């Protein structure tokens, strides 16, 4: 099996400590769902929070219509800085979900800084025909961070360039060993194994690509699923077909002979498909493939739901 499916200790702490979904309501972003693990106090504060456009991290991603990385909360525009400090959270990435010009939601992931957690959450943007690093959070992978800051990707090359060219999510295996170019040496040294790349649609012609690079010791997730959406005549998503997926427990999830499908509102992925909104589930093992939590993120293309990406941890 690929590196991500090797003997991973499921008790290891995940790279991402908190994932939460904010949705627009009456001109503000309000809490919709989230996974806070053991950080109950931070959860309690967050659930009562809301953000105006431009306010706090989610509001900034909304106002600027782009993904935003924030490293270090003290003295920043991050509204929950004190609660985050108490919870040991030091960095966050806000990912807006736009359908054309309409904001559907903002997903925020928060991470804690320590010497052990390795992984990468990166935002790439297009400039003069190349993808450059907008910003990223790398945990302990300092050398990889430095390499990434000095790397650019042409169309079609590497995970970011591949996602940009395909305008579709991609899941790469063996970043460090089998995947042998550009940042591979450094990725290998950082223990990064699996890479998930997502095109982030924003209004206008700007291009953003989000990459989540998972390490064996502190994985971003233990199961990844990429679903292609099929729409009905009215444009509403009716079902999705699994395009790719791997799972630490079940191995490869894809099947080139028999399509795995999910209908709208069928399970957690189906809910994301039906509602067109991202969601975080922690409630039942049935909805989370036996893992503690899962995130389902819809991806839009030209205002229409095109993919749902789910990760479980």
């Amino acid at each position, binding site marked *: 099996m690929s590196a991500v499916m090797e003997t991973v200790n499921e008790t290891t702490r995940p790279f991402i400590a908190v994932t939460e979904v904010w949705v627009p309501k009456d001109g503000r972003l309000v809490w919709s769902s989230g996974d806070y693990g053991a950080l109950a106090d931070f959860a309690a504060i967050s659930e009562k929070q809301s953000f105006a456009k431009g306010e706090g991290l989610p509001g900034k991603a909304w106002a600027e219509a782009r993904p935003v990385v924030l490293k270090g909360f003290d003295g920043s525009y991050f509204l929950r800085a004190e609660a985050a400090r108490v919870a040991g959270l030091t960095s966050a990435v806000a990912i807006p979900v736009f359908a054309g010009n309409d904001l559907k939601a903002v997903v925020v992931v928060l991470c804690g800084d320590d010497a052990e957690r390795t992984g990468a959450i990166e935002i790439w943007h297009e400039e003069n025909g190349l993808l450059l690093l907008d910003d990223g959070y790398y945990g302990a992978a300092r050398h990889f961070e430095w390499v990434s800051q000095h790397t650019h990707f042409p169309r*079609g*090359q590497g995970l970011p360039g591949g996602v940009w*060219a395909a305008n579709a999510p991609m899941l790469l*295996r063996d970043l460090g060993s*089998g995947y042998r*170019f550009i940042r591979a040496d450094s990725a290998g040294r950082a223990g990064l194994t699996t890479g998930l790349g997502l095109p982030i649609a924003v209004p206008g012609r700007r291009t953003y690509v989000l990459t989540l690079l998972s390490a064996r010791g502190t994985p971003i997730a233990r199961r990844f699923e990429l679903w292609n959406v099929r729409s009905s005549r009215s444009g509403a998503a009716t079902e999705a077909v699994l395009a790719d997926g791997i799972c630490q427990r079940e191995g*490869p999830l894809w099947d080139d002979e028999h399509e795995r499908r999910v209908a709208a509102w069928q399970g957690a992925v189906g809910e994301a498909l039906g509602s067109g909104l991202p969601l975080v589930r922690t409630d039942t093992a049935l909805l989370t493939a036996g893992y503690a939590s899962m995130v389902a993120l819809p991806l839009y293309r030209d205002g229409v739901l095109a993919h749902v990406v789910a990760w479980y941890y």
Partner: protein
Amino acid sequence: MQKLVVIGAGMASGRVLETLFETDPGAFEVTLFNAEPRGNYNRIMLSPVLSGEKSFEEIVTHDDAWYGANRVVCRFGEKVVAIDRTRKVVVGENGEVPYDKLIVATGSVPFIVPVEGRDLPGVITYRDLDDTNRMIEASARAGGRAVVIGGGLLGLEAAAGLRLRGMEVTVLHLTGHLMDRQLDEAAGYLLRRDLEKRGISVMTRASTERILGENQVEAVELADGTRLAADLVVMAVGIRPSVELAKAAGLAVNRAIVVDAQMRTSDPDVYAVGECVEFNGTLFGLVAPLYEQAKILAGCLLGRPGSFAVKELSTKLKVTGCDLFSAGDFAAGDGREEIVLRDPAQGVYRRLVIEDDRLVGAVMYGDTGDANWFFDLIREGAPVSAMRETLIFGQSYQGTAPLDPMAAVAALPDDAEICGCNGVCKGKITGAITAKGLTSLDEVRAHTKASASCGTCTGLVEQLMAMTLGAAYNPAAVKPMCPCTDLSHGDVRRLIVAKELKSIPEVMQELEWKTSCGCAKCRPALNYYLLADWPGEYADDDQSRFINERVHANIQKDGTYSVVPRMWGGLTSASELRAIADVVDKFSIPTVKCTGGQRIDMLGVKKEDLPAVWADLNAAGMVSGAAYGKALRTVKTCVGTDWCRFGTQDSTGLGVKIERFMWGSWTPAKVKMAVSGCPRNCAEATCKDVGVICTDAGYEIHFAGAAGLDIKGTEVLTQVKTEEEALEMIVALVQLYREQGHYLERIYKWLKRVGMESIRAAIVEDAEKRRHYFERFAYSQRFAQRDPWADRASGGVAPHEFRPMAEISYREAAE
């Protein structure tokens, strides 16, 4: 327990074993040979392994535990040397194994293009995991360059994988569009565009001449002399069945091992399965029929015989983001109709081919959501007339009324943006139509700017006009150029430039052609428009020309051709006349005639003699007279001041200058010119497309005459004093006509359509504009002034056009 020996651990034999063990695990004691040092894996998923989107471990179908559980004796990494059918043993490199039943599943080997340099290190084929690993190794070098020979499924998957791994990749494909066996031209264009967006260079009609390098591959040289630097060359041009072992064993082999419908070879105890077999003359390369064969074979071994039959196949490309599908037979033909749906904004193309009320083929690009449904319709042969109107939209549209685009437009809010280029919303357009009484598209364009730029929103604007004006709207004012499109010639010309469309498939996709490949009306027109608008960028498409322009001669009523060499300004010489006489004798040309344009016409030339005739005429310094083309034909002259007592200027000299400057250029319709040395007009310049009447004061420039079906005297454009001015004026005029004329529209009809005022404004009254037209013509001549006869006389261009279809004797024909 019977002994079963299997040679080859590929996907087909793997499926045989799976079926056997699932059905009757104790039936056979199995020994499995494989030349590769590993067991069965999903070979068709090697491409995602190359790209990094799968790991090899994920595509292993049978691991050691599976072989162990089924007590399979694995002899991996051991080649089979022979099959001794008399003793019923398989001879491996490490010893013999007896069999009761034998399965030959030796698969196929990649075809290697037989060119110099094919054995150089760095030149590889793409077949197995070792090849994949070699490509991954090669991609590790920063800035590496790969050339993939073959733009089929495998080649393109290799190209995408190598590109993702950081290489600079060029794909070479022999024919005109990628995946030409699975896709039509339109889908091939979209695929090419998608791959080019990934930074992959695609070269079609590219023939590999040789591979260069000392100790390692360094470059690929094409037949046209182009050299492409390469650190890696991947040959992916097809496969051939691996049959040597079977042949040596005396089994019946044609192109592959011959099997019956139970997968039995000529020896009843020996079966064959997979890419190494031939059934009813058919070879197999896709996995679906291989799995079907495997199921049949396993059934036979277990005494439950089935019968294999060749079924329709479908194709998908495993490149993330390239969403394509094809199935069935999508060739055009008599009795077939096609339904085409294009959505340029989404890059979507769908084409269905229907014959006898059955769907027989489908090609889809960009949105393949309904692929399986269409594939089922093809396989089932279900009648489609009941859903004919909505069929193209897919399964979810069935049982509903056809889409009403007007209803969709009516439902748009007033602030919905219609024209993205100029930011015009629906309310502004409908408001202007009502308030100002606008009834034509041009009026709406003039008042609102909607649809005035790229024209993408023209359809929407027309629907808004229809919705607002009701019966007062008369869309018939726009005459489509042919049934393949609703756009007029003028719209198409404007949009080709505005949207920078540079190929016929691109025009058809972006302008939503209603047919897949156009028709005899639009293809020649588009070919001309693209040639005229993108000199040096657009490659002339011979297949979009009528026969005369394809073979560069005029076909006659008996199927022979007439040949007219160019005679500059009507001048000739003894050596030219001698060469013509020799050609006439040599090729027994029955008729020689002088033309009205002061040329010599040789009539009755056999098609296959044309290249040789041209070679002889070329040798005497003559080139094609373009007497067959929508092009500059002749410049007729009188003798002028050289000989004539009344001549006022050197009319012959000016005629020669004009012809030497302008020959080779393509025009919307034929262009005939003349220069007369005095107003007596012996060259009959005042009924030509462009004429010059010389006077003591200079040169009168005439144009827009006609002396054919229509008879019309010329109009005077202007008068100039010098030859240089006359030449500039004529060239600029013709260039304006080249840029504005509709295909097959003669100059006099063009004048009638656009008006003298606009032509004079551009050519006579504005020196800068005139200069620009002149310069654009001169630039295009850099690519146009190439004698088509010389190209074809050498056999380098379109030799197939001049070959007889078949040489058969009367006796053969009678039989």
